[in-house]
């Protein structure tokens, strides 16, 4: 790190709290972002000379507020003053210092900021892009690269998303318990979306998208710091850590997908696994199971197995059964069928996924799993058909290439030697 390299991480980590608080003051996302930007510029000038302030976040909020207020005052000479409720909480300067914001104070500010990004009218991709821009502070260029679109197209998308949420009128009062729980649920889902964008790489190279996974983990940890005793937030964070731990083994040198069974488990990140397992243990103590906790537990069972054949598939089967009860979905049943195949064999698994043909008619993995089961049962022709359907639905070259390997094998086996 360079001599003043310490400032960048401080600004980066202060961003959610500072913008969250500035948003509460100004009630305008653009204004909050601008104020933060200006405060960062002053920090870069001031901190190297005077050293870091005792509370960098409070410093950035105070400076951001003052700069923006000066700006409002300057403009007010030529334009009418904004309505009082547009610049709320602007008492004397003493109150901010007295505030000496602790994490419980930031909690609802950060949650509100995250929640604004998960407006239900926004398509998933826009939610993710908005959160990456506003909360994480990634540049439009970085986000555009992750989504494989041009910078101007991404700029447009983010601008549109912002104007959509500006009209949404998210209340600025401290939320009640039920409202807070609802926000927490929406935000957790959005963070999981960010992670999945990076993890499943729908249409991009995984290499480019790895930062999205890391960003999602950072957001999950932030949420967990604010809500340390929420079992589902523990579960979400554990899930992301355990999934991400396998990232180094998921693709081979040519960028082809390596399935769990074939992965070099020595490449798994043991630090992330240990942390994920520790969080699951904490969550379990609450005895309030939820979908994230169970998915994390499933990832945990895989992480415990040093070799694929050590995997406790019947435990995974049971965990999926619980998940099916809590959150019934054809995708969950499909995943359970993979475990059932290992425990009870391909015939049972195939019978289990047969009713899913209709709801999962457009789902790549359905045909991949189906083809695999048919192949195991020696029904080569049907397997070929299923794999063909899978290829047609593949999102990435790596997905298609993986299925093509199966097809090639089937073709080779069907040809007389």
């Amino acid at each position, binding site marked *: *790190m360079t001599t003043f*390299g310490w400032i960048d*991480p*401080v600004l*980066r*980590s*202060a961003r959610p709290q500072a913008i969250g608080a500035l948003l509460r003051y100004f009630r305008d996302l653009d204004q909050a972002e601008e104020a933060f930007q200006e405060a960062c510029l002053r920090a870069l000038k001031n901190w190297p000379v005077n050293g870091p302030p005792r509370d*960098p976040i409070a410093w950035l909020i105070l400076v951001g507020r003052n700069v923006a207020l000066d700006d409002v005052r300057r403009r007010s000479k030529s334009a009418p003053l904004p309505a009082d409720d547009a610049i709320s909480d602007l008492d004397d300067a003493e109150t901010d210092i007295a505030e000496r914001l602790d994490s419980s104070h930031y909690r609802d500010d950060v949650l509100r900021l995250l929640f604004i990004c998960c407006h239900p009218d926004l398509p998933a991709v826009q939610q993710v892009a908005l959160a990456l821009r506003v909360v994480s502070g990634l540049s439009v260029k970085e986000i555009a690269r992750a989504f494989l679109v041009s910078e101007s197209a991404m700029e447009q998308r983010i601008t549109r998303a912002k104007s959509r949420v500006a009209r949404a009128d998210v209340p600025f009062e401290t939320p009640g318990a039920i409202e807070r729980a609802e926000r927490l649920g929406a935000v957790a889902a959005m963070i999981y979306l960010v992670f999945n964008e990076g993890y499943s790489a729908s249409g991009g190279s995984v290499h480019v998208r790895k930062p999205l996974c*890391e960003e999602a983990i*950072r957001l999950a*940890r*932030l949420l*967990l*710091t604010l809500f*340390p*005793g929420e079992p589902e937030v*523990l579960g979400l*964070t554990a899930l992301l850590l355990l999934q991400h731990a396998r990232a180094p083994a998921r693709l081979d040198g040519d960028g082809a997908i390596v399935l769990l069974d074939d992965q070099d488990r020595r490449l798994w990140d043991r*630090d992330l696994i*240990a*942390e994920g397992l*520790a*969080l699951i*243990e*904490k969550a379990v*103590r609450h005895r309030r199971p939820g979908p994230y906790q169970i998915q994390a537990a499933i990832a945990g069972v895989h992480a415990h197995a040093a070799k694929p054949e050590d995997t406790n598939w019947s435990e995974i089967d049971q965990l999926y059964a619980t998940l099916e009860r809590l959150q019934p979905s054809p995708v969950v049943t499909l995943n359970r069928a993979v475990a059932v195949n290992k425990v009870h064999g391909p015939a049972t698994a195939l019978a289990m996924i047969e009713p899913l043909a209709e709801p999962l008619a457009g789902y790549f993995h359905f045909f991949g799993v189906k083809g695999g089961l048919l192949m195991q049962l020696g029904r080569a022709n049907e397997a070929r058909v299923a794999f063909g359907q899978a290829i047609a639905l593949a999102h990435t070259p790596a997905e298609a290439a993986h299925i093509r390997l199966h097809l090639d094998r089937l073709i080779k086996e069907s040809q007389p030697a």
Partner: protein
Amino acid sequence: MLYAFLCCHDEAVDNSWTKEEDDAVLAKRHKVTERLAAKGKLGPAVRLMPTTAATTVRMGGEPVVLDGPFAETKEALLGFYLIDCDSLDEAIETAKEIGRDEKVVFEIRPVKLFAPKGIAS
């Protein structure tokens, strides 16, 4: 005289480091600790998991188990044990055992990195 060096840092900042930045800090420190180790002056070095992985057991009356780190500023950190436990439950039980009849607070933190290099005595 033996000294304990307690590393204190803003965790949010620590968490926002990229893997490369984190590695760079470790590599930089390693140069120093390697020299100390060569002189036989380096004792165990411990890196803790984030405080989000912490559990706090508050003794005095009925023990209270809380998620998260011990955050009060009134009390100071006085020292720490490293104990091999099979599970979080066992760790909590052990803390209750050690702290019986005291008003002590134990923060139980899973250890991320343990480099048990002994002091040459």
